[in-house]
């Protein structure tokens, strides 16, 4: 959870993946790979984008650091502050609200002993609210990493939390692997 000051460096497998991604765009348009590369960078950096990591991404894509910062701060999936190992994102938009999203947030808050937007003291969980996840027919819905959990009930949440606690769930995995 601490920002490490040493210059990050990806292993060769990750660098290969990034080289492949850059090839998807025309010559000289490598900046197009910024969004996918930031997803990978965030996963490799405990779920958030530190300034050091963003500078490294700028280096990899041959662009200015400012170009990375302004993009990273625009998109809601990028975290600019440290997060817990398992980030739980609860959808709160109309259709989910109609199906009880507020109770879902409340249940997580009471089970984790934190408010939405906070991280548990042991660093295991961060709770966030997000906007429509395109799963309104199976509301209420949460996202954890690349997983969707739908038609949620307090009982289901209890089950999930027990499981995640036991396995020390980490939600920030490289989405391409």
């Amino acid at each position: 959870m601490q920002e490490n000051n040493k210059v990050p460096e990806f292993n060769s497998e990750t660098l290969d993946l990034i080289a492949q991604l850059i090839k998807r765009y025309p010559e000289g348009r490598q900046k197009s790979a910024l969004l996918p590369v930031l997803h990978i960078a965030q996963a490799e950096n405990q779920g958030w984008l530190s300034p050091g990591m963003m500078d490294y991404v700028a280096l990899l894509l041959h662009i200015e650091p400012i170009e990375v910062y302004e993009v990273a701060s625009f998109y809601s999936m990028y975290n600019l502050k440290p997060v817990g190992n398992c980030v739980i994102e609860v959808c709160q938009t109309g259709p989910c609200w109609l199906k009880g999203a507020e109770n879902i947030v409340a249940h997580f808050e009471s089970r984790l002993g934190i408010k939405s937007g906070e991280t548990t003291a042991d660093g295991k969980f961060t709770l966030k609210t997000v906007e429509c996840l395109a799963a309104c027919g199976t509301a209420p819905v949460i996202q954890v990493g690349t997983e969707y959990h739908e038609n949620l009930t307090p009982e289901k949440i209890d089950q999930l939390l027990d499981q995640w606690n036991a396995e020390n769930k980490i939600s920030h995995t490289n989405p391409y692997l």
Partner: protein
Amino acid sequence: MATQILLKNIDVPGLTDIHVYKGLGGYSALEKALKNFTPDQVTEEVKKSGLRGRGGAGFPTGMKWGFIDKQSEKPRYLVCNYDESEPGTFKDRYIGELNPHQLIEGMIIGSYALGAKSAYIYIRGELFYVIKIIEKAIQEAYKNGLLGNNILGSDYSLDLYCHPGAGAYICGEETALLESLEGKRGNPRIKPPFPAIVGLYDCPTVVNNVETIAALPWIITNGSAAYSAIGIGNSKGTKLISACGHINKPGIYEIELGLPVEEFIYSDEYCGGIINGNKLKAVVAGGSSVPILPAELILKTAAGEPRLMSYESLAEGGFKTGTMMGSGGFIVMDHTTCIVKNLLTFARFYRHESCGQCSPCREGTSWMEKILMRIEGGQGTMKDIDLLVNIAKHVEGNTICPLGDAAAWPVASAILHFREEFEEHVKLQKCPF
């Protein structure tokens, strides 16, 4: 049962596997297009089919393709809009997840018509599990000679890629999407120039919704006449409706355009009626951006005609008594719903998603949210209600992109049709629900 064009075979196990898809006749439309049609003939077929864009605006697809600048020496691009972020909309998600090859086949046909050598599927980053399914299907298509050089032995070549977004509703707006695909913030561009002239990397580009693209194989296989024989008026073919809220059977349904709204809500083939036998209160028929209608106006037009699921019928009555087809996100509310609170969640959404470029949108969305919070929290005044109407009026039509309108219409329509409920919040100094 309505003709199934988009959801046909969707229940077949293993459909994401190219062999299963091919076994059901998959990729024969592509073969037909490459062998029997010139690119312009494909465009002509799509024009004659009457297919309209399914992303929200309903613009005729063939006509849009016709605008592409074919004189330009620059490369041309087809970009699929898989941003699917309009609250209430969850239809495209299933196409990629359950039938990715139908989308890929449509992308190849569309790219052939436009003369594109590269095409992208821009898909919201939250749906990474769908990206993986589509990318696997793309690999299979390459291995089977359906992508890459000389597709099916023809002299047509195409590369197709997926590109993830990273959480921004505004990137569904086509010019913001192109900015995002170029690795920038999703700030909409000023139009004109339109993407057909200056699009991705300043090259001629068409942006189409997933559902639009997924209809192409069927149109090529069965012909434009078969497609335009389905539907009513200028609403041809079938449409996916994602239905949610207080109904017995939420989910996605493929309807023939022209289906009565009442049948859609109450028949067991579709939504199966309102939960717990409750009373229908209101419907947002086309995603959060379209005007809300009370039960009596969604079931029947102001003239007393049955309201139909078609572009024209849903819009009948204009802003006063009508709404829009939009993306097909159909949100149903029963009599226990607080209209103010529901609206507040939408207002929060638009404030959160405004890109901030134009001050009426940036300031207006945050102001509307604050006032709605006040009213819902019991601190609102009667003046606040008029203030909301006023702000909505000033946002509408005064912005670079349609997000401003999309934020204003829900507010203006909710107050137009449910003013007493806002007033009750003020009088009681609390939410009555």
